């Protein structure tokens, strides 16, 4: 039950894009059409679901203060949390490399359409952000961490697909010249964020 409410919360209330602005760069760059947006959204969700539990285990059994207690008494006071950033990003970069190889093998068309953005998932802030929020919130077990990763990923997917759909419609509208492209996208995102604000404060 907790896990379900966590998933719903992370999709709507703590949406990665509209509440924390994580992963904005690829969000703005890859949202020109719905198909590519769906592909990238799925890739992000996939990477989040894999990296979060891995980083959770590392955080709780290697990095945190006292986390090494299972090695023996003399390690109980070791605090390696200084290295958490380095470890997290290394794990994320290698898992992204793996996902890239898998997609290239099984879906060349998706690989071609995601193009240069696949390696960019490694530097997508929402992935590292997920791990850092996980560290901050201190989830009780691996399952909760995975649920959080899944929810955040789906929230991100929802946001980018929504924006891409709006931008496809926007082709036919008259936008003031200086606002064309980037400017109007920012304003649309802001309006969507205001919409999502109506979810805030809901307790599930």
């Amino acid at each position, binding site marked *: 039950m907790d896990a379900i409410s966590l998933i719903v919360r992370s999709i709507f209330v703590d949406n990665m894009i*509209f*509440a*924390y*602005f*994580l*992963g*904005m*760069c690829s969000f*703005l*760059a890859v949202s020109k059409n719905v198909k590519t947006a769906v592909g990238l959204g799925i890739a992000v969700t996939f990477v989040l679901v894999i990296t979060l539990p891995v980083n959770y285990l590392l955080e709780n059994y290697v990095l945190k203060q006292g986390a090494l207690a299972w090695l023996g008494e003399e390690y109980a006071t070791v605090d390696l949390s*200084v*290295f958490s*950033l*380095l470890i997290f*990003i*290394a794990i994320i*970069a*290698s898992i992204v*490399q793996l996902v890239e190889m898998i997609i290239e093998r099984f879906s060349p068309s998706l690989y071609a359409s995601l193009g240069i953005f696949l*390696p*960019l998932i*490694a*530097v*997508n*802030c929402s*992935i*590292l*952000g997920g791990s*850092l*929020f996980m560290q*901050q919130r201190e989830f009780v077990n691996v399952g909760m961490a995975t649920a959080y990763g899944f929810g955040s990923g789906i929230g991100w997917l929802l946001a980018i697909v929504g924006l891409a759909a709006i*931008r496809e419609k*926007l*082709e036919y*509208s008259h*936008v*003031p*010249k*200086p*606002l*064309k*492209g*980037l*400017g*109007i996208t*920012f*304003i649309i*995102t*802001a*309006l969507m*964020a*205001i919409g999502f*604000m109506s979810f805030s404060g809901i307790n599930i």
Partner: protein
Amino acid sequence: MVLSNKTKAVLLGPLNKNNPIIVQVLGICSALAVTSKLEPSLVMAVAVTLVTAFGNVIISLLRKTIPNRIRIIVQLVVVAALVTIVSEVLKAYVYDVNKQLSVFVGLIVTNCILMGRLEAFALGNGPWPSFLDGIGNGLGYGWILVVVGFFRELLGSGTLLGHQVIPQFMYDAGYVNNGLMMLAPMALILVAVIIWVHRSRNRELYEQTN
């Protein structure tokens, strides 16, 4: 010191025509999330400038020895090491601001400006131009942050750097702080307004499609 034209372009281009945030669309996340007050914006601007500059120098020095296939991991590790240093320094000297920035100090690692500049510039240029490029892009990123932070703090809470600037009699006369400014969406709208003004002054930056 007299700078040649090329160095000048490398250093000053990112401040205007080639700005990382409003033209290259890099590093948006942190620009929006930390700017609800002026002070964290300033700290963030300085931190990103330093990390970009030194990250550029280090990668530029290593550029001939990094195997192409694993370059992204190498770049991330170098940047993560620099960010860890910055975050420890922030914790030691400006603890309150560090608390406000929360995870966003760590997220400098995945700030696209860093990876973008490392990939696009440092891998193909010597250490000194790379250093200038890093400083230039950091400052170009910084001034947007400071402008957004300035307006959000001024209109949202009537203060600047924590000092009251909107006089009390205005409040007595019925002036109210705009609470919406403190919320996330207004940061997006402010950046959009900056883009609007900037592009009306630089017509060559107009985009053809929506």
